[in-house]
Structure formats: C-alpha cells, structure tokens
C-alpha cells in the first residue's frame, strides 16, 4: 500500500509552519523524517493520522485521494511523544492489541514477570518500550512513530530497530527522531523538513548542507 500526504499547509497564530510538504510511506519501506526543533515534524505526523486540522492537505491511499481522517478509514497506529495508553495491566493491553506477550518477553527478558502489573507501575522508559512494541507489532497498515528512540537505552533501541526492519515487510512505517544516525541506518527513504517544505536527503553531507549537523 502507498500512503501519501501532499499539499500540507499549516499555520499557528498567523505564522506559516508548513506549506508544500509531500511525504510518501509505502509497505516494505521505512520512511524517516528529520528536521530541526519546531519545524513541524510532529504536526505533520498528527495531520497524516488525522489528529490535527490544518489549512490544507491531501491524503492519498494507493493514489486515490480522500478527505476523511486517515484513522477512521484505515488501520493506522500513531505513537505520540507523550503517554497515551490507559492505565491497564500489560496483559490486558496486549490482549486489546492482539499481540503475543511471549514474543515480547523473549525480546525483553527483564519484563518477564510484569504481565500482571499495571502500566503506571513501570518506569517511564519501560512504559515507552511497551507503547512502542504495541504500536509496531500491531496489525496496522501504516505506523507513525514520533521519536520512538528518545529515552530508550542503546540495547532497547537496537532491539526496536531490528523489529522495525522485520515489521516493514507487512506495513508502511513513517518515523521521526533526533537520533539521526539510528534513523539513517534503518530508513529506505528520508525526508528533511526545512522552511516549511520537505525535501529528500540521503547522506550526512546533505544534512550538513541543510544546517542540521556540523560540516566535516
């Protein structure tokens, strides 16, 4: 499946944040989104999902345009930066998402006996791991991840990256994070948001030219 977001225009208090943005995510690929703080990456993901209204946008699914909110017509999952899961037991949450607990506990052995704990009994980082896992392992056709690697230990980041590479066979994945090396390592397509517009980038020197990292 191909999901496209085109002609995005967003302004806050008269200030134009996004205009002329184009993003494409497709099954079998991981698409990355980079940009400096406040450039509109999170807003873009929210607009794609249908959680934020904007002045103008066009969402296309397999080249067919729709004006409806994406989450109401397709199986899409969105991982925001903030906590969004209800305070239920992990067992209940895994059952709601229809995801195997055993597979999770094999990947994260330290969670082995947490199954009956409620979410708020875990640390912030552990809650984040659960939220990421539930989102990427769901049966969604499109997964939108807002800063999935932030607050994770390097080991957990490596596990999640490996899982994303496995899961991309069945779904389109679009993610953003400031840990750009991790993003560049796993993405097939990479967009950079600057001055309200999107452009494709592929190397460190592209990012240096755009002022995102220091020039070498």
């Amino acid at each position: 499946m191909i999901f496209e977001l085109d002609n995005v225009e967003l302004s806050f208090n008269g200030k134009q944040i996004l205009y002329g943005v184009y993003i494409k995510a497709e099954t079998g690929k991981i698409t990355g989104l980079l940009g400096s703080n406040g450039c509109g990456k999170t807003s873009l993901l929210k607009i794609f999902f249908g959680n934020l209204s904007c002045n103008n946008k066009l969402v296309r699914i397999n080249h067919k345009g729709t004006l409806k909110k994406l989450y109401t017509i397709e199986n899409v999952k969105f991982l925001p930066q903030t906590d969004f899961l209800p305070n239920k037991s992990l067992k209940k949450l895994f059952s709601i998402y229809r995801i195997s607990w055993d597979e999770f506990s094999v990947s994260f052995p330290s969670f082995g006996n947490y199954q009956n704990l409620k979410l708020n009994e875990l640390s912030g980082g552990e809650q984040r791991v659960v939220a990421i896992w539930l989102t990427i392992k769901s049966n969604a056709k499109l997964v939108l991840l807002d800063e999935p690697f932030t607050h994770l230990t390097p080991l957990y980041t490596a596990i999640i990256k490996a899982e994303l590479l496995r899961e991309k066979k069945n779904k389109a994945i679009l993610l953003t994070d400031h840990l750009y090396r991790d993003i560049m390592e796993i993405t097939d397509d990479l967009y950079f948001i600057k001055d309200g517009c999107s452009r494709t980038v592929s190397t460190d020197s592209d990012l240096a030219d755009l002022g995102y990292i220091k020039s070498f």
Partner: protein
Amino acid sequence: MTIIHNFLFRLRLSFHFYRKLVISSACLSLILFFFGNVIEVILLIKLIFLHKRFFEARDSLLFYKNFGISPLFLFSYCVFADFILSVVIFKLSILI
C-alpha cells in the same frame, strides 16, 4: 463478519472509556433524583456533565483513535449508555 466483529470490538473498547464515568455519573443521578428533579432536567444536566468530563479527557482519546474510534462515536456511546443508566435509576427510585 469482520465488520460486525470490528464494531463489537469498538463497542467493548468504548465501554472501557465509559466505565471510568459510571460511578460519578450514577452518584450524580441519585443526588438529582433525591432532590426531586424530573427526568428531562436530569438528562440535560447529565449531558452537560458528560460533555465536561469528555472535554477533560480529550488527551486520552488518542488511544481510541488508534482503533478507529472517533471522538463523536465515543461521545455518542457514552451519552446512550448514560441515558440508559439514568432511566434505570429513575425507574428504581420510583419503585422504592
């Protein structure tokens, strides 16, 4: 079959949301009945109460959106379930 299954799943998930409101809503109904309000007034007050609680919980709606449940669907479900609860309490209070 899948559509019906998905619809039932969404109803079950919506009940998870409504469950948090049941006790406070039932208490409010009992207080309003105790002061002898008519059912129409009680339902109107409950509608305002639900809208307020729904507005307070708007940040938690993202979880439900992840399962294709729109805020309108969720609010309609809560209103419907709450009206049934209020009518049941009203009928019971008349019997007692």
